[in-house]
């Protein structure tokens, strides 16, 4: 199906390896996003215990995507995966308004991490297929994204379920790979 095969055609020359870290609260849609990127079936997904990793080709890059479980109990392990990250993708369930504060705190803590300093961050405002989803602009405001000065960032509304918005987000991620601020 679509996405990946189109991206494959655009592929050129030897691939630059890119390490992408997928983080966010549990039930945000990280694994669905990962499977969608790899053009895999998304109908039998279970909660992630530990992590998943997949490599996908995109725009002359070999993306090694690490999807780490989001439950509170394993968030302390997130830091074990920070090293050498090229792009951080933070996934938010846009319909889970009750946990906006919690997700904002986790994101703020990540942005304070020394090992992630200067790493470009893409925020996926996921689950836009749900009627109750907050628009990306509202989430950006709630999270005070405009105060981020030490790195490039982007917020992209998407639906990992339908695939909408994912390609746009990944295009941005690939473009910003080499813009890490030292």
């Amino acid at each position: 199906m679509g996405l990946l095969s189109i991206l494959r055609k655009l592929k050129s020359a030897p691939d630059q390896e890119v390490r992408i870290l997928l983080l966010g609260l549990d039930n945000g849609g990280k694994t669905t996003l990962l499977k969608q990127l790899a053009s895999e079936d998304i109908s039998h997904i279970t909660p992630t215990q530990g992590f998943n990793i997949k490599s996908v080709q995109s725009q002359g890059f070999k993306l090694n995507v690490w999807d780490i479980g989001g439950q509170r109990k394993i968030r302390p392990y997130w830091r074990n995966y920070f090293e050498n990250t090229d792009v951080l993708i933070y996934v938010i369930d846009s319909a889970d308004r009750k946990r906006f504060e919690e997700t904002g705190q986790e994101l703020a803590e990540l942005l304070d991490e020394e090992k992630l300093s200067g790493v470009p961050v893409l925020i996926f405002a996921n689950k836009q297929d749900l009627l109750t989803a907050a628009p990306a602009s509202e989430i950006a405001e709630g999270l005070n994204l405009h105060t981020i000065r030490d790195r490039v960032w982007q917020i992209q509304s998407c639906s990992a379920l339908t695939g909408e918005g994912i390609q746009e987000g990944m295009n941005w991620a690939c473009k910003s790979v080499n813009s890490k601020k030292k």
Partner: protein
Amino acid sequence: MLAYIWQYVYTSFLRYWLKWFIRQATGRCELQRICSGYKPGATRTIKAEYSLQSSKSKVLRGALEADQDKLDQCVGQIMKVKNIKPQKDPLFKGSLYVCLLQITGHSSLYLSVEDLRKEVFNSDNQEHEAALLKLWDLLMPTVKLESRITKQWGDIGFQGDDPKTDFRGMGMLGLINLVFFSENYTEEARQVLSHANHPKLGYSYAIVGINLTEMAYSLLRSGTLKPHFYNTVQGKPELQHFHQLYSYLAYEFDKFWMAEEPESIMQFNQYREKFHNRIKAHLQDPDVSLTLTVRCDKN
């Protein structure tokens, strides 16, 4: 390539002539030889399934998809087509009937499992809610749940304050498996839960359970579980047999995990894969039976 050509020649011509030749020599058709030559179980049923599948006769192939209550007629029709006289082979009818019951039963078991899987956990459904609360009471008999939405769910291995988001792609199948294991093997389930809450080797009991439901489900879907069901159920396998198999996986995975002593829960998928391969290796054995044996089995 050579193997491929041989395979083609064998299945399209040789097999047919070989069968004809043996039939002339022994006076019995392939199905009769299978039914009388093997004891009831996986080997016999799988051979019968293959024989029916590759038959040139519509009647024989059709029997694989027949309704449960029409199997008697199917066996009669097959005996007519194959010119099998009940007087000469009195046991054939009963044997083939059981084989067909197992084969068609496996397909209908998959459909029932799939229906449960597709049933999304819904907080407005009282049955769903009752099952969830029952799970808590079975696992935590001395602790009262403070409210429906609470951090306590973490104590039995759900991710957040409300378990409803954890069932995901496994739907009610995941919950019903968890409840079945806790209800029918209460002591074992509590023992597994206490291991899961181990400070160093711990894992999330409910989440791992839902992942093991996914394992059981994909093994069923791919047909890999056939030998297990053909050996353990001499008839139509029912949902409870699937829940039994889940109970086996939940209990055995815990034993496996505790014995392997992984560094942390982050290694889960790696060990899951290793466990999965072990189960698949067991299923290669024609005498396989993945049954949970405990000191006093209530079932």
